[in-house]
């Protein structure tokens, strides 16, 4: 047990949360990260779906890594990912139909999410199943972290509320504020603001961690 959670293995989970974050540092999986962050609920569902697909795809490819001929590995990876995504899509349609409608094509686009291909190529093809599983969970959580930060910012400023799965929509800004003339910033709901929020997150992260600055 202690072997399974050694320092080296724990690093696989903690690194992607900060200095090796898939979105802000490795630049993987941007497309879906931006499109589903208008409200918090779809962002959380998306993050969980990606983490699940990533962890299991990592394990499967890692188990197969010695038998896949390198020339056809991309197709094999795509088939494994596509099969897992179909499972996730069917589960969402069965148990969370409204959210799956909101996510529309973005569930399908998990297949071409670069986090998946990137981690499969960079990690699962060269490592044992257990570290690969942890790597998948770690990178999925790093992705989730950014998604939730962006979604919370956009929903608070854009709609004045927070929508959590299972709790429904909660108003955060009291009516008295609106009566005094405060109004929601409609720009935050529009797609371009997601890019600017991520840009600012990158700015803050790099200002704190000078090693990440590009020359």
């Amino acid at each position, binding site marked *: 047990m202690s072997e399974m959670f050694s320092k080296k293995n724990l690093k696989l989970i903690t690194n992607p949360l900060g200095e090796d974050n898939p979105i802000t540092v490795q*630049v993987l999986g941007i497309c879906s990260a*931006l499109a589903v962050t208008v409200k918090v609920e779809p962002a959380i569902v998306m993050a969980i779906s990606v983490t699940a697909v990533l962890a299991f795809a990592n394990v499967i490819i890692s188990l197969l890594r010695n038998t896949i001929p390198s020339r056809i590995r*991309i197709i094999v990876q*795509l088939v494994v990912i596509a099969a897992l995504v*179909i499972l996730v*899509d069917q589960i969402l349609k069965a148990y969370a139909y409204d959210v799956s409608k909101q996510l529309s094509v973005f569930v399908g686009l998990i297949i071409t999410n670069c986090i998946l291909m990137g981690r499969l190529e960079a990690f699962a093809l060269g490592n044992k199943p257990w570290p690969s599983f942890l790597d998948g969970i770690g990178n999925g959580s790093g992705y989730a972290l950014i998604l939730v930060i962006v979604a919370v910012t956009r929903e608070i400023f854009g709609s004045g509320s927070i929508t959590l799965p299972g709790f429904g929509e909660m108003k955060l800004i009291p009516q008295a504020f609106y009566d005094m003339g405060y109004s929601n910033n409609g720009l935050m709901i*529009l797609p371009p603001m997601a890019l*600017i929020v*991520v*840009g600012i997150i990158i700015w803050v992260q790099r200002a704190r961690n000078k090693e990440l600055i590009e020359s």
Partner: protein
Amino acid sequence: MQEIINIFVKSVFIDNMVFAYFLGMCSYLAVSKTVKTSVGLGLAVVFVLVITVPVDYLLNEYLLGPGALAWIDESYKTVDLSFLSFIMFIAVIASMVQLVEMVVEKYAPALYASLGIFLPLIAVNCAILGGSLFMQEREYTSIAQATSFAFGSGIGWFLAIVGIAAIREKIRYSQVPAPLRGLGITFIVTGLMGIAFMSFMGIKL
């Protein structure tokens, strides 16, 4: 005919792949350092979109969609295979990219040399799969509409990547705060370009 032109204009400007849906962001950010390479990748994306979306349209119409198998026999009318569409679409895209790569290599070596490394990358560009999935979701009624949508989305993506590459070439000479250099400023500039593109949103076609 007018319908087809409307779809084209709409998918270039109003429903732009990059600014409205953030599709193909990864390669958009990674390959936009110089205008020359971004033109190559942009052309390759247009090319592959125009080939794969009509093929996926036919697949969806005659194999996967609800009631699509009715042409074999009336009794197949209730079959709905659309849950298989992800795996079929991605298979079509991966094999088409491979095929296009081989054809271009044989018959247009000059084009191959300029597109070279970008062609295989396109298989995992979300703009391509996104094109097919949007085509399925928006339920275009003819193959001409689907092709026009594919061409328009490709051109929209091309415009976006060439635009950001030109801006990034200029940004190199300006004083950007150190932590924003590279990735950060590219995100913010893309956001501003997106706001500019939103001015097309009011247009009703």
